[in-house]
């Protein structure tokens, strides 16, 4: 007896999925951050060396140096650089924009910061090197408002400077850019000064970092540079996507011809799989690079394999003379352990890639691991659920629908 309810539920699920994919794909795809290799830009790996021998490079110095680099790039007018501190002593800077003054920016970043305190005539009164190491910090006044505290290594110098400029402004410059312009309220004798103003916790921290990095500027040595021209990047993306479409079309036709009705369901779940992977990528704020796309296409292969293993098993059971329903049950059950084993081992490989690989390999590993988890949900459980609905609707009882010829079926 045909059970229309189940088939209707199947149609509703597929319809909802199709609507979701059709209405939101464009927006989701647009949100995904493309890597340098796909949109043009450049990446530099710096090794951080302390400017004075004997100073250690620690995570604090790395962070403040990375902050300083971001600040400098922003001064240069480029939006959204990505800086990553890599222990023990490296900073990776990625700028995904095709600006003509790439080379100028590199020069700007590499130069050690020069921090100066100047009087109203622009005369340099104090220098970054007068600040004690890590001498700038965030403090609070009586009303718990954030302020920046400064500690100078030579109290006498500060006393002289404040005496000479009492009630006058003293500007703090990073290179030739003024950062802040506080007015000196009193002669400071102890070597500790405070900068008050309308600071938030964040902006006070930012200024303190900046002053510290200016006070103890790390030396940056370029270790690796990768730059991609915009036209090369776009070309690479277009070609790779085109190859991806062709590959997907081949798989689509193959599944349909060999497995018929289950093949159709595999194609539906594969489309869902691709869509959800994009959603998760967007949600993770991951950057999609060329190796990432390659990893993704491979994950599609593994997802297809999960379906092939199951359908081959179902075909086998049908050939041995079982009804479609019991063949479906046995095939699903027997193939599950195999598929889970296979997915887990690939996850182990991605884990190793992530922990022991370098930047671009790590990106590849993250994409692969994510797709494998999504694949288990869509291509193992999702595809089983849909196939279950269709089989239980009793509309496709003939072995033909599963790609099995009547002549291949043995007598029990």
């Amino acid at each position, binding site marked *: 007896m045909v059970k229309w309810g189940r088939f209707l539920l199947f149609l509703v699920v597929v319809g909802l999925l199709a609507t979701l994919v059709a209405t939101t794909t464009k927006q989701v795809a647009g949100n995904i951050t493309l890597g340098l*290799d796909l949109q043009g830009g450049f990446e530099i*790996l710096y090794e951080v060396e302390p400017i004075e021998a004997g100073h250690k490079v620690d995570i604090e110095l790395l962070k403040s140096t990375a902050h300083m680099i971001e600040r400098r790039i922003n001064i240069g007018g480029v939006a959204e650089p990505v800086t990553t501190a890599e222990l023990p002593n490296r900073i990776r800077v990625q700028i995904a924009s095709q600006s003509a003054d790439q080379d100028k920016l*590199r020069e700007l970043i590499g130069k050690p910061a020069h921090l100066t305190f100047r009087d109203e005539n622009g005369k340099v009164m104090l220098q970054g090197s007068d600040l004690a190491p890590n001498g700038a910090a965030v403090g609070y006044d009586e009303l718990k408002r954030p302020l920046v505290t400064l500690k100078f290594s030579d109290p006498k110098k500060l006393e002289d400077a404040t005496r000479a400029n009492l009630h006058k402004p003293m500007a703090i410059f990073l290179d030739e850019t003024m950062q802040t312009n506080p007015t000196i309220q009193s002669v400071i004798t102890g070597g500790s000064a405070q900068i008050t103003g309308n600071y938030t916790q964040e902006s006070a921290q930012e200024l303190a970092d900046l002053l510290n990095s200016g006070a103890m500027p790390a030396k940056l040595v*370029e*270790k*690796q540079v*990768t*730059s991609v*021209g*915009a*036209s*090369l*990047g776009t*070309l*690479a993306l277009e*070609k*790779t996507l085109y*190859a*991806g479409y*062709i*590959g*997907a079309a*081949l*798989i689509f036709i*193959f599944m349909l011809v060999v497995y018929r009705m289950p093949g159709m369901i595999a194609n539906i779940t594969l489309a869902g799989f691709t869509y959800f992977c994009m959603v998760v990528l967007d949600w993770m704020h991951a950057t999609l690079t*060329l*190796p990432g796309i*390659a*990893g993704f*296409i*491979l994950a*599609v*292969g*593994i997802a*297809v*394999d999960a379906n*092939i*293993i199951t359908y*081959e098993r179902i075909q086998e*059971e049908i050939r*041995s*003379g079982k009804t479609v329903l019991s063949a479906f049950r046995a095939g699903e059950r*027997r193939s599950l*352990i*195999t598929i889970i*084993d*296979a997915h887990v*081992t*690939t996850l182990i*490989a*991605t*884990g*190793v*890639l992530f922990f*022991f*690989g*370098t930047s*671009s*390999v790590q990106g590849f590993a993250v994409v692969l691991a994510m797709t494998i988890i999504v694949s288990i949900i869509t291509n193992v459980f999702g595809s089983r659920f849909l196939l279950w609905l269709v089989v239980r609707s009793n509309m496709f009882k003939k072995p033909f629908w599963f790609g099995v010829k009547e002549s291949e079926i*043995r007598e029990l």
Partner: protein
Amino acid sequence: MSYDKDHTVIRFDIVKNRRKFFIASSVIIIIGLLFTLFQGLHLGVDFKAGTRLDLFIGKTFNPADVEAVIKKEVPDVNFSKVIPYGTDLSQAYTRFDQTISSDTLMKVENALKAKYGEQVSKQVSSVDPSIAQEMVQKAAIAVAIAAVGIAIYIAIRFQWLFGIACVVGLAHDVFIPIALFSILGLEVDITFIAALLTILGYSINDKIVIFDRIRENLRTMKSKTIPELEHLVNVSLWQTMRRSVYTVATVFFTALALAVLGSESIQNFSLALLFGLVSGTYSSIFIAAQVWVNLKERNMKKKKEVV
């Protein structure tokens, strides 16, 4: 068991001929080893310090002209022949033995812009020697750890004999692409390592499916004597043959599309995948499963002697 084992069509006795497959693989591996030893691998900038320069010229050009421009701007450094690539040969590639400063490369780009127009754009990767060395080490460690981790998982989920057979198969699958890249003189860069690890994952995928079937059949079929065991493995292999062929075919054609139509920067990645896919499927059936047969038979003989 529901379906009839005796009806499984064995088109070819794989187990009986296993020695031939061992010999064939050994020959390829030995030739590859000789090539790697004497010719070495063509290492990309990721592994060997220097600067790789990719140029988008945007129209057909004479490589000798581009070489002349580079020679003029970078007089003292050796660089490889400028090789055109891309569908209409409008792109070019060269590699410097040393790292080249960005100012110098800017000059090259500007000189080429003056010659060929504003559409010229460049892509640079340069690597310092210390970083290059570190990358090689990290990559080798990653491959070794991945293999060990996967083997331990198999030994726990299955049996240690399967674990050994798996490691032999994996070593085979990692080595074949390396040997082929050495023989063909293709460039090895960091994406090649990513490809190798992907091959590891994929090849284990394949081996698990086959081992799974052998394990399942061990429970239901007689395998007390050596002929019975060999029959069992033959049956298991032929039961999973369609899936092996179909799966490798779908992934193979996708990787082939990537290699032929995809971006040049992942062409070597796709090629490594192609070699690895074929080698992985081959070794699952003809090497790993057969190594297991050998180990198992030796085990059976030993037990008999004890009794």
